[in-house]
């Protein structure tokens, strides 16, 4: 359930060009999800060296261990709590955490995308969804 408040909305606010950078992050999360579903969660180990974001790396390792549900939510949110972030870094972290929670539940990548796209903002989410679906169609065509 969405539980917004004014302070949160303020901290999530960032420039449009920054929001465009969400696309690759969401795509990366979807790729990890796809790999976990196809090859097993422990196969994500091979992805760790290429993950630059420390939170994403930590989150993937927690997911591999099987930490799930509220415990995973609280642990990831703690990493958010201990650093004063706002604007783009905060938005990026929120998207990463929500993506990791979807990964832990082995969500279908399309469902994961639908959970993450609202972070683009209502007006941009549809266009971003179309872009991701087009990329998926291209992948299927290959």
């Amino acid at each position: 359930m969405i539980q917004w408040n004014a302070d949160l909305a303020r901290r999530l606010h960032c420039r449009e060009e920054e929001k465009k950078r969400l696309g690759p992050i969401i795509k990366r999360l979807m790729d990890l999800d796809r790999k976990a579903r196809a090859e097993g969660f422990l196969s994500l180990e091979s992805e760790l060296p290429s993950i630059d974001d420390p939170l994403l790396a930590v989150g993937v390792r927690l997911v591999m261990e099987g930490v799930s549900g509220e415990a995973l939510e609280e642990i990831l949110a703690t990493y958010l709590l201990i650093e004063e972030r706002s604007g783009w870094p905060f938005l990026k972290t929120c998207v990463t955490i929500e993506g990791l929670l979807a990964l832990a539940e082995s969500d279908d990548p399309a469902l994961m995308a639908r959970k993450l796209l609202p972070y683009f903002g209502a007006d941009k989410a549809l266009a971003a969804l179309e872009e991701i679906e087009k990329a998926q169609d291209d992948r299927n065509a290959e």
Partner: protein
Amino acid sequence: MIKAIVEASRDRLDTRKVSRQKKDALFELAARVGIIAEQSRSSSMAIARAAASERRKALKVGLELVAAGAEVEALDRGFSASIERPSSDPGAELEWMLVRSGMRGLAAYEHFSVIMRRMTAFLGPDYFDKAEDWLMYRTKRRKSRPESLVVPGELPDVIRILAMDKRNLERALRASGRDMAAAALAGCPQESMDLARPLYGKIGAAALEDDAAQLRSRLSGDEIAQAQSAFLEVVRSLEERGELRLGPEDELSADPAFVAALTKTVLGVDAALIKSVFRGAEGALVATAMQGMEPEAHDHILGSLSKREIKRILDAIDYSDPLPRRAVQGAGKLLASRLFEAAAAAKAPRPILEHLAAIRDWAT
């Protein structure tokens, strides 16, 4: 937006002013709590003993609250009321939050690995590897207690079928979450645990096994059966969404042709014959076979039996979960075989014998 993010964003904490030395000390404190959590699994007095000998005020109060049986929300309130959050001292404030989080995990019976992860998260990603090393060491030292309590049900069969393609079993386990999976596995034979464990890595596997062992002694048989039903519900939901790659014989839905043929055959069998065969048949077998029949066949069977037999069969149905196609067909074929023998001995009409033989020899 997930709830924990909203709470975390409200509950800000600036750890940049906390020294490395303080963080190292807090890591040791988290490790102490991890050991207490591990010991509490085998000794109910471990937390009270730790509280009695603890010198750090926040941890002592937290342990006392957990030892007194406080649940998570009551613990939060009690902890905040007993010790004011020291917001003017970043190090003390970090300790306050770290201890409160650990106590929440302890009160929720979390595995020591999860408690360690949640506490060391306050120290930042830099401490993740250090926690990993500590957990690997503890995991190697821990004593595995392979034992099983088998709650009657079909989950072990379903797990065996899912494990034929590990992706299926993994998807079911992940979609359920490790807590539910552990509760469901608590009522399964060791074989089921052995199939699930390798999907989590060393630390996760140890947590799954320890949690199942603990839940086996903490939950009642009914509660474990409920967890198993919930797990099977997840499996069915995944199957309905096309998320599992099952062969036709492993699908949970029955083969419509088999259901129609079995129903027609059962309706054609004399009530006395049904009574003679079903009276001695195992309840679980009948309940499973009846998953492959239409309701009118159920009525015909139950209408042929005594009240006592009806109760026995209905109880077995209550305890049964939806089964894979191969199990339902196997039970139907076995009962048809027994009916065939009884019908042949009673010199039943040839068409009845042919129908029963057709079910008995149904190709799967």
